[in-house]
């Protein structure tokens, strides 16, 4: 199967961002971590468990009309370290990025520690330092290694 065939599984977009090589099953988490839930009117197309050469199966997320910032791309590294980001203008890929691990992420994840100050009603955003193999709450020090996507704050 050629690359063009695979692309067809999810329709082409005119302008926006294609996030490719997301680990199978993580597409919805990608949208969650980017805070995209459709309420902003974006057109979003998702391909899940698409056959892939490098990963056994992969997810693809296409967001029409929105170019991701570098900050947003970096945050993706937490759950989609192999992802590639294609910025599309006029149906052409004009930029290709790989994700980089940021030093910290703010306001994206919630702390699993019930006794953490970020889990009560205080005017503070969560902040996690990014470690080699996980993230760490900068307030209570709790380290999260497994299943980081399940800690994506739902607000």
């Amino acid at each position, binding site marked *: 199967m050629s690359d063009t065939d695979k692309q067809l599984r999810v329709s082409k977009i005119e302008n926006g961002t294609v996030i490719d090589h997301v680990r199978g099953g993580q597409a919805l988490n990608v949208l969650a971590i980017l805070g995209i839930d459709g309420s902003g009117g974006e057109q979003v197309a998702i391909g899940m468990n698409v056959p892939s050469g490098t990963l056994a199966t992969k997810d693809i997320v296409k967001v029409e009309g929105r170019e991701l910032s570098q900050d947003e791309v970096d945050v993706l590294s937490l759950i989609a370290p192999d992802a590639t980001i294609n910025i599309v203008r006029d149906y052409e890929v004009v930029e290709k990025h790989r994700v980089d691990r940021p030093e910290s992420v703010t306001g994206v994840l919630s702390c699993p520690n019930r006794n953490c*100050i970020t889990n009560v009603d*205080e*005017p*503070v955003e969560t902040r996690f330092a990014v470690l080699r193999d996980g993230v760490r709450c900068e*307030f*209570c*020090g709790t*380290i999260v290694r497994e299943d980081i996507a399940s800690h994506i704050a739902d607000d």
Partner: protein
Amino acid sequence: MRHDHLLTANQLTRGDIELVLDRAAEVDANPASFGKRHAGKLLGLCFFEPSTRTKMSFEAAMKRLGGDVVDMGSVDSSSVKKGESLADTVRVVEGYADALVLRHPLMGAAKMASEFVDVPLVNAGDGAGHHPTQTLLDLYTIRENAGLDDLSIGIMGDLKYGRTVHSLATALTNFDASQHFVSPESLELPRSVRYDLHEAGATVREHTDLETVLPQLDVLYVTRIQRERFPDENEYHRIAGEYQIDAETLEDAKDDLTVMHPLPRVDEIAPEIDDTDHARYFEQAHNGVPVRMALLDLLLEGDS
């Protein structure tokens, strides 16, 4: 000090620690010369959970520096009951005081509060998180009795929830100390502390009983195993009983073993040890005042 706030032991370098301990030694040697150092200054005490000793020791320290304290009072009578946020409370008290001391039941409270105030803020305990001034007085006591390098220290008891243990273990990574952790498996060090110790390249060993490691120790730091951690009273007594020491336990110890405890103790250390040369826990508690005087002196000095 380079820092405006003292929030966790992780932020302390060897240089910071030595600066505070050296200043504390000066205070100890000549307390009178510090008696008017901070006349007219006010320290704000924000204690969101009861801690008579820590609070009294800060109060004593500030008054011995010539200053005074303003006290938020007990949580029962404060605006906290009315639902005011911690962020608001510290911003209000900041207006009354030149420095703040915060004790709070939630982890990370001091870190958060420090981001809302411009005066120095000292963490006096945040839940199971950190208690860095306890660590400074622990280190002072260790240095006086056993020295801080080429040190073999055993830390025993509740290592999971004991914030004094977390802070002390982290701070000791600045020194040439081998650390032996002695606890029941259910109360061993939490992941985040292990991570810090590992990152710092610390020499760490874990044990479930004291016997094997005791003979090589210079310092034995005992902490209380809290009854409320156990759903079953019998289980508590069985486990806690294994981590109590008495004169017989210490027969195999070095003659100059220093025994410490952050206090209050329940029955972890038999009273018969109090009269031996090993016992240093009351001295340790007394060191709280000169060490906190030194710390406040450094923080307020940077302020003026």
